[in-house]
């Protein structure tokens, strides 16, 4: 494993790889190495590129090196009463760069946006071995193309981010969970849609098997109190709400947000229009799935014990997409991690990828569409 000490080292390694035709897999903490097809490319770790470059809480902006542990970043901003509002989560060892490159977002994503919405600027090394800067270090900027959007969620396919500038926001002073129990799928969707569409400012909504529908209410104490008082009335036609103690709520949120603890060796992450959440689960029930739902129904984790692409077909039929996040290696070798894009979009995506990595330095076999790019242009 290559472990560059700084951005200059990294740039030289990529430039050498470009010259020699070597393939490189970019790695943060390596906690998501199981995503995508098995491959045996050389690994370049960004773990040594660590540390905070600038943090001024009043400016709501944080600039940090890519290899900084996510937990350190979260502790740093928490100490100032702030947070990364997209609620990133990860295994111990996850880095901020890897988390953003994987487009990770938690339950608050439904109201606060994803990693893409909070990545303001970056410095990166492209597959050409060239350092470039994109975006900026202020919260409001439209100067030039929004390349940070492309880099967030790009899984190291375009280049290595060395520094990231993120928007930070005040951490709510108080956060409580309200719960309704025993709801059917359609009833839970209707209740979540009603809550998220109300002016009670619900910041997250989830549903887990067993029939528990969770709503998160966060903010200043008088506001939280007032909204918790109003919500049962707003949702009276759908369900009965009550407060759920944090200790009981936390593992339920965790399951909805991460899909962890679901039964099954194969796990899918389905994103779709929330109104089709119930339809998806009903269609997949015969496969013997376990599942959990976040983002008001917009994200559904599906777990099962065999590889069945019905999951992907149903997600597509309902206007969404499914990515394969966990599976035995032989299955990951045959089924692509990302949902296949429409042909025109796939070709466009490959042209954009090669705008950053013309020599395919970062094509390791992890994502089959990249390895097969030339077929699109044949």
């Amino acid at each position, binding site marked *: 494993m290559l472990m560059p000490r700084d951005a200059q080292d990294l740039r030289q390694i990529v430039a050498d790889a470009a010259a020699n035709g070597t393939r490189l897999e970019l790695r943060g903490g390596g906690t998501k190495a199981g995503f995508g097809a098995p491959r045996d490319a050389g690994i370049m770790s960004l773990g040594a590129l660590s540390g905070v470059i600038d943090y001024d809480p009043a400016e709501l902006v944080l600039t940090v090196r890519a290899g900084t542990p996510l937990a350190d970043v979260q502790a740093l901003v928490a100490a100032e009463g702030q947070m990364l509002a997209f609620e990133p989560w990860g295994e111990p060892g996850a880095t901020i760069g890897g988390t953003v490159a994987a487009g990770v977002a938690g339950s608050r*994503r439904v109201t606060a946006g994803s990693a893409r*919405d909070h990545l303001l600027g970056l410095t990166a090394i492209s597959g050409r071995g060239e350092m470039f800067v994109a975006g900026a270090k*202020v919260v409001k900027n439209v100067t030039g193309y929004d390349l940070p959007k*492309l880099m967030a969620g790009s899984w190291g396919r375009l280049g290595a981010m060395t520094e990231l500038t993120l928007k930070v926001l*005040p951490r709510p002073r108080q956060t409580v969970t309200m719960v309704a129990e025993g709801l059917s799928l359609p009833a839970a969707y209707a209740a979540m849609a009603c809550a998220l569409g109300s002016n009670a400012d619900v910041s997250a909504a989830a549903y887990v098997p067993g029939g528990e529908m969770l709503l998160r209410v966060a903010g200043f104490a*008088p506001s939280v109190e007032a909204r918790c008082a109003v919500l049962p009335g707003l949702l009276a036609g759908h369900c009965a709400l009550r407060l759920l103690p944090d200790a009981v709520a936390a593992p339920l949120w965790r399951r909805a947000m991460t899909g962890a603890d679901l039964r099954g060796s194969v796990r899918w992450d389905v*994103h779709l229009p929330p109104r089709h959440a119930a339809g998806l689960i009903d269609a997949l029930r015969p496969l013997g799935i376990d599942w959990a739902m976040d983002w008001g129904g917009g994200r559904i984790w599906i777990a099962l014990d065999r590889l069945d692409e019905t999951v992907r077909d149903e997600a597509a039929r309902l206007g969404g997409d499914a990515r394969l996040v966990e599976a035995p290696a032989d299955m990951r070798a045959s089924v692509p991690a990302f949902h296949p894009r429409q042909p025109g979009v796939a070709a466009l995506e490959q042209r954009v990828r090669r705008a*950053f990595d013309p020599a395919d330095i970062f094509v390791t076999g992890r994502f089959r569409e990249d390895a097969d790019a030339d077929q699109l242009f044949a």
Partner: protein
Amino acid sequence: MSIAMPAPDAQTLAKRDRIIAAMRAIVPGEGVIDDPDALRPWESDGLTAYRQPPMLVVLPETVEQVCAVLRWCHAEGVKVVPRGSGTSLSGGALPLADAVLLGMGKFKRIIDIDYEDRVAVVQPGVTNLAITQAVEGRGFYYAPDPSSQIACSIGGNVAENSGGVHCLKYGLTTNNVLGVELVLMDGQVVRLGGRHLDPGGLDLLGVIVGSEGLLGVVTEVTVRILPKPETARAVLVGFPDPESAGACVAQVIAEGIIPAGMEMMDRTAIHAAEAFVKVGYPLDVGALLIVEVDGPAAECDHLIDAIARIAGQNAAVTTRVSRDEAERMAFWAGRKAAFPAVGRISPDYYCMDGTIPRRRLPEVLRRMEALSQEYGLGVANVFHAGDGNLHPLILYDANVPGELDRAEEFGNDILRLCVEVGGVLTGEHGVGIEKRDLMPVMFADEDLKQQQRVKCAFDPDLLLNPGKVFPTLHRCAELGRMHVHHGALPFPELERF
């Protein structure tokens, strides 16, 4: 008038009649405008100092027509400038003498509204405000609210990544768009995003938003709609100087409050606005802050109290809390009228748009004042204080020879200053032609080349909206070349494990 556009292509001009005929075959009736008098109204956008009648205007009504126009122009090497409502303040929709101006104004239909999933699917010519009007009966609205929202189109908002006074809390266009249908320059239709969050694969939608019409023509937009806050209240605070106002803003945010809007005006802007709309702004202050909070009533009450307290701790000389909706609107009336109000105290004004780290505000205002003396031109400042987005209004008289050029140079110096203190050339108006030649102030050559390579992935022949955003348009073949140094040592000193 210092910005030069690329010289018109003589070959294109020579075949104008053939282009017109081809366009008429695609878009029948009055959808093709070629009469010189009829082209006049199309000669500029919101950056009115620059005017150029287009070669011709085409106003398609269907996606098929858009595809056919672009496909034909692509095959024939004819340039195309897309246009929404033409309210760009940076010249993003400025026509070219040798280009088809593709007006999307006839795409005015709201296609679908899904209140449960909180999305609206609209055609690009629908105005920003019309989206809110379409959904407000059910208690929803579309959050980004550029000041031109009554006229600007959502397609133009996507192109420019438009903001507004509420974007610190609610985000810019990019944070509120879920999907687009896009026609590429070769006539191909692609759908990016959808009605769901975070589709897998590269976030091509993210780079389309804010691409200023250089990557494709948007033919459909899916936006998020939000529940209208239960209530909104505002507080109007006068300070002896901008420093105190800036300190107040910093403390508000440090205490964990993200107001819906936080606007600052300097003395010149306050006096101009008050003289125009007479809403009772204090005239004996050096800076005025309007802080608006929205949300549940209990929250607004709590926050307004906190903000009034913070204002008091930062040398506020007057603090007025809106007692009702009429008073809240009155607080805003002066701010919203600030541009026309400044128009009354000066024959012309030039609106700038840069962002700075807020902590540098006092220094930036001092140096702007020095520049004002140097150029002999007045300046009034309105400022989205929450997110550091400055709108200096440079006062000049276009009838005085040389003053427009001086105003432009003054503006350029302000933007250079923004970048110098760690900010950016544009917070919400876009680069267009206005800031095109300043791009190297903020970006190194490699940064700009990387952006242009993305342009090449979408439009390798550089036919869409050329002359905008990039100071130098490199040919795509040239940008694709790799300059690698063979035989470089593979880092023997690095640890490998």
